[in-house]
């Protein structure tokens, strides 16, 4: 279990922010082995800072991070895989050498690093490019090298900051598959993303962060249950004032009126709608992650 508890971090102020800026104000969540955790939040909410602290790149002012009950040090983090938001590779270094180098930095022996590199290149379809300089690769292939760098040492934990940003739909699927594979192998995977549909599709659980605080954590199903279902009725060309006195809100698009409500007598609403015009849609809807997110950070 990867446990992150009560992380706090304040960045020192510059001329424009004399008091400094609170980046994290008590972030905490935990991820089980084999669980994929989606980390969502607006820009500047604190996702990257949290991940940097987990990876030891930044120091928290207070709070703790532990893996399998032990607090994290350099030795533990050596077995973590990390893909930072700001991608980086040595542009002039050859593909295979680069992956091997990071394997060695993560503590693999020379032969192990070479074998792991060969395997990864094979799986990512980069074997033919192994001796090319990274800068000669297409952006998509560079992303694969970046992923290989994060995976080369067969990490115990994967932390990925915006791994899907800038990828085409096919590359997104390929990366998602690679992550799911690792996850099924018992690796906890944390990734941040603004693509909420993707998070909804891939993740077992989700953490929503806003202004340095966790505003919601849990499985997608839990969050939905907490948010509550809503009733949506679409009526075409209804008589004016048809929804007066009904709960919820009406939005109008052309001659279509949509009523959305979380309470009220659904049968009464249906009767009123049928009387007012042509009912095109009547149904109970689960909130999407996007709606949950907007509600949570509002």
């Amino acid at each position, binding site marked *: 279990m990867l446990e992150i508890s009560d992380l706090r971090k304040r960045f*020192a102020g*510059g001329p424009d922010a004399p008091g400094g800026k609170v980046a994290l104000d008590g972030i905490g969540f935990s991820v089980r082995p084999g669980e994929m955790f989606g980390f969502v939040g607006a820009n500047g909410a604190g996702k990257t800072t949290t991940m*940097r602290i987990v*990876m*030891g*790149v*930044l120091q928290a002012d207070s709070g703790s991070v532990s893996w399998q009950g032990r607090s994290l040090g*350099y030795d533990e*983090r*050596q077995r*973590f895989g*990390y*893909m*930072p938001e*700001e*991608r*980086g*590779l*040595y*542009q*002039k*270094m050859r593909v295979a050498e680069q992956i091997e*180098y*990071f394997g*060695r*930095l*993560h*503590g693999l022996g020379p032969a192990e690093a070479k074998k792991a590199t060969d395997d990864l290149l094979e799986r990512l379809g980069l074997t033919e490019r192994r001796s090319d300089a990274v800068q000669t690769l297409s952006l998509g292939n560079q992303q694969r090298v970046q992923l290989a*760098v*994060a995976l080369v040492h067969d990490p115990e934990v994967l932390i990925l900051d915006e791994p899907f940003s800038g990828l085409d739909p096919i590359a997104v699927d390929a990366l998602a598959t690679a992550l799911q594979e690792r996850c099924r192998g018992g690796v906890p995977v944390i990734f941040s993303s603004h693509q909420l549909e993707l998070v909804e599709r891939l993740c077992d659980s989700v953490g929503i962060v806003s202004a340095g605080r966790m505003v919601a954590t849990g499985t997608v199903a839990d969050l939905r249950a907490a948010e509550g279902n809503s009733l949506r009725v679409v009526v075409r060309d209804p008589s004016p004032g048809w929804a007066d006195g009904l709960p919820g809100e009406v939005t109008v698009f052309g001659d279509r009126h949509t009523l959305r409500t979380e309470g009220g007598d659904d049968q009464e609403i249906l009767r009123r709608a049928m009387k007012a015009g042509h009912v095109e849609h009547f149904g109970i809807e689960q909130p999407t992650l996007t709606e949950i997110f907007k509600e949570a950070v509002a």
Partner: protein
Amino acid sequence: MNGLMLVARREITTQIRTKGFLIGLLVTALLVAAVSFAPKIFGGPTSYTLGTVNSQQLPLQAAAPDAEVTWRSFPDENAAKQAVLAGDVDAVLVNGVKVLTDGEIDPQLGVLLQSVNKETKLGAAGVSIPPLQMQSVGADTRYEAARAGIAVVLVLLLFMLLMGQVMMVAMGVVEEKGSRIVEILLSTVRPWQLLGGKIIGLGVLGLINLVTIAVVGLAAAMVSGLAADFPPGIPGLLAGVLVWFILGYAFFATLSAAFASLVSRQEEVSSVMTPLTMLIMVTYFVAFYTTNDATGTLATVLSYVPPFSAMIMPVRMAATEVPLWQVGASMAAMVVAVLAVLSFGATVYQRAVLRTGARLKLGDVLRTR
């Protein structure tokens, strides 16, 4: 420790494979070899071609063993005049009483001819004059010229290597910071390992350069015969220069990494490095000046002041005999300075290297954590 060595090894293997490094090494080796042969080709010992008309050859060779003297004899004064005007001979002795030249005679040759002529005539008259015994009561100055020459070459060498390697460190730091690869690196190695590995790796490359130059230079000097003019103690001097290079490099390279970590783009490297390159230039100019006056007050005082000592002590060591305790004291001061700079540089680097974006101010970095 493993991380440190891996980082250093990457620096070395990456650089050593570039064309630039190999070509640079080859060019310096050729230059050094050329410099070692130059005196033989352009200078060489003085040589005189002299003629005689109805005269005995004077025993010049005994009086000037370093000069090459060739004699030709002419049947009469007219033939001799023509040869002098044609430049075939430097001077012609006629009837043992006068010397024909084209214009003023070479002063050295004039003095030589006069004194040897007197000696011969007096000897013939039975007067023998024992030669004056020359004795120096001051320092041994036999090798003064050679020593000064070696000092100039050393200073230039140290300057070029220091400047080159220090700029490499700066560019390497910015490469990692600008591409954000530093974030992945710092999640697996500690900042001091990354910084230290880079400095060590590029330092080893500098040493490879220095040793190549020394070996090629010495070998060429031995082949060309220049080594015969070398003062004693060259191996000790070279060992000293290696140590001074390492100390000077550690000092400047650490500062270089600290300054470079303030910027995120290669275009900003040269401007952020200006104070440091100025410091290296000033050190070089002062050191170069002291090659003219290696025993003066300026040289003596600054040979203890880091970082000037890194270039000025080698100058003093090359130009004069420096007592071992003085070298030791100067090195100790430099080591203390290097340690101070290491702690300062590592702090700045650690704090600044993850803050990408606009150029950071050194003061801000030092104030904030």
